[in-house]
């Protein structure tokens, strides 16, 4: 056996989309016409000029995972993380390159995928186990263990549709965990179940590496990656931007890359193709002394600043700016909106800066990203996704909080007393 368990060599995946297709019936029809034209031209041996735009969801990804490695895969949304896991899990085929895997591959892509809600827990253990690659004999052998780990003994003969979502997830995880794979692919599943089950799951996952397997772990949560993984790789736009290396270096590289992007590459994340009357030219977050902040601090004061340029003559009235603070998964935690305080803005200079001051950031530590929306007379005129991606550190006025872990997203000023 080679000294690696998993190796990828220039693994690449290209998707093709027909940009002119649009949705609905016309779109389907255009895709069909394009398909037929391509096939017809191939049969006649003619060159076919592709109308579809192809883009590489993953391009030339090479790395080698050795026995015992726990590898974090880091990157923004759309960086190619899930595509990498899909390729390794053989859900879809690569366009070029290859991967070699010694041993069994287990996926914790989305828990409960193989479940059928009408079937009982018992029946689902067998089906789901077979779907992820266990033989019937193997499932029978491990059946009691699976049931015990999941803790749903009493409901084994109840249809899964009557399960609580927690129970369903526990059972599903339990089945997947008992596949005993050499390579385990994990995509953000630890956010399920209660704290004690999460601990159990983490241990089960770690066991794979302790027994000589290797784990590929996708998470948006840098602290989970830091605590679970010993190695990490950073992807951006399908390419490796940080080669497999120590996890702290990878996280630092990712976060500093993110900080650089903020200023230089706003253009890239601009969502509106048509230039509107107002354009955001830069976005930055500054501390009270005017320094750029790459990391934010819970409870600390800060200014969010949008530099704008007008495309037409000034002034422009009835402008509304929204700053959406989101989790890296895209859930909106909070929205800052000028309408909430001073009402619609009037921009009277052709170039200028809109400032939003926060006295103490009421968010717990973790990773966030910020999107910007600019509306004029109710019409969206500029929109930038992920204008900022970064960490919130513990500190500031909430630092007295000694509780060991962060629960939730929001910090609330609170006074306690006992009589």
């Amino acid at each position, binding site marked *: *056996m080679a000294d690696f368990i998993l190796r990828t060599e220039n*693994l690449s995946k290209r*998707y093709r989309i027909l940009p002119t297709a649009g949705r609905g019936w016309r779109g*389907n029809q255009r895709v*069909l016409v394009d398909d037929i034209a391509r096939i017809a031209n191939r049969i006649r041996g003619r060159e076919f000029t592709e109308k579809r735009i192809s883009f590489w969801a993953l391009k030339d990804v090479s790395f080698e995972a050795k026995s015992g490695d726990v590898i974090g895969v880091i990157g923004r949304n759309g960086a190619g993380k899930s595509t990498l896991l*899909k*390729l*390794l*899990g*053989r*859900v*879809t*085929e*690569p*366009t*070029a*390159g*290859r*991967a*070699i*895997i*010694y*041993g*069994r*591959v287990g*996926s914790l*892509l*989305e828990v409960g*995928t*193989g479940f*059928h809600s*009408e*079937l009982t827990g018992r*029946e689902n253990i*067998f*089906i789901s186990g*077979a*779907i*992820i*690659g266990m*033989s*019937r004999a193997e499932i029978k052998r491990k059946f009691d263990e699976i049931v015990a780990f999941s803790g749903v003994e009493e409901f084994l003969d109840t249809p899964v549709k009557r399960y609580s979502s927690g129970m369903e997830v526990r059972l599903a995880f339990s089945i997947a965990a008992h596949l*005993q794979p*050499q390579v385990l692919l994990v995509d953000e599943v630890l956010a399920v179940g209660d704290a004690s089950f999460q601990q159990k799951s983490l241990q089960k996952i770690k*066991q*794979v590496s*302790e*027994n*000589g*397997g290797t784990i590929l772990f996708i998470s948006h949560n840098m602290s989970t990656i830091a605590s679970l993984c010993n190695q990490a790789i950073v992807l951006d736009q399908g390419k490796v931007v940080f080669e497999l290396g120590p996890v702290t270096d990878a996280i630092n590289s990712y976060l500093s890359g993110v900080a650089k992007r903020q200023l230089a590459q706003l253009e890239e994340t601009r969502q509106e193709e048509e230039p509107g009357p107002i354009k955001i030219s830069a976005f930055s977050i500054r501390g009270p002394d005017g320094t750029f902040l790459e990391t934010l601090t819970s409870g600390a004061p800060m200014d969010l600043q949008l530099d704008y340029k007008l495309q037409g003559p000034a002034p422009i009235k009835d402008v509304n700016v929204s700053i959406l603070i989101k989790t890296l998964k895209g859930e909106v935690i909070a929205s800052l909106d000028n309408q909430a305080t001073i009402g619609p803005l009037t921009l009277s200079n052709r170039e200028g800066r809109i400032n939003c001051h926060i006295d103490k950031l009421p968010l717990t530590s973790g990773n966030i990203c910020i999107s910007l929306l600019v509306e004029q007379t109710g019409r969206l005129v500029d929109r930038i996704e992920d204008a900022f991606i970064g960490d919130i550190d513990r500190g500031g006025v909430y630092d007295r909080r000694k509780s060991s872990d962060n629960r939730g997203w929001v910090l609330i000023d609170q006074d306690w007393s006992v009589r």
Partner: protein
Amino acid sequence: MFGHQEQKSIRTTIIEPSKNWFGANLKELWDYRDLCWMLALREVQLRYRQTILGVTWVIIQPLITTAVFTLIFGKLLNAKSDNITYALFAFVGLLPWNVFSDSLQRAGVSLTRDIRLITKIFFPRIIIPISNAISTLVDFLVSFVLMLILLLIYKMPVSINILTIPFLLLFTMILSIGVGIIFAALNVYYRDFAYVLPFVIQIWMFASPLAYSSKLIPQSLTWIYDLNPMVGIINGFRWAVFGQTDFPLNSLLYSFVVGLVVFSLGLLIFRRLERSFADVI
């Protein structure tokens, strides 16, 4: 966690763009045979769950169809039935036809019903349509027993030819799975095929000697009529049960060959299209 036994049988997977057209379709199918059976079993378990009559539906369905056929074709239109009680004649014809049409229909739309599986987990996709098709064999078994009871009631002697039925059934399955996987694969790309399929089945039904005897077809048209591979199979079934007609050797051989050709073609098409299932479904 990894016992010594499991270490010995370590498998190597190489993931790369597929180049060949045939691929390891059938070998993989064999590796995952447990899953195939279990999915077939799941289909059976699910089919009549949360119904009041439950498995009784398996018995009721062919009886009602036979009754309708007998009433309309047997009594009203006086269709010829090769000197056999019309109800029996129709029922025996329906046996292979129901297996064929049910498994074709189920296999044909099967992939798009399991989108979550296809986009999340790897296993040979062909297992889905095949297990769907296989699940109809349970209905066949029940109908078959029902047929034996009917033969008893009508005091019909059972021919020794009945032992050939497993082979005839195999022919039927090969043909229907062959057509079924083609529809299943195409339906992933264009859902229109799910709407076309019922019409295909309906037209195919009228083109098969179900409600009428194939002797009804004018001599000048039989060459077209016999192109339908189900003609040989249905006549074969009647020969196997009643033993009164001649053994339809030529048309059965023809059905078998067509079945194999369609099946291979199906595998080929499926193999070619399944690469992108997860991307386009």
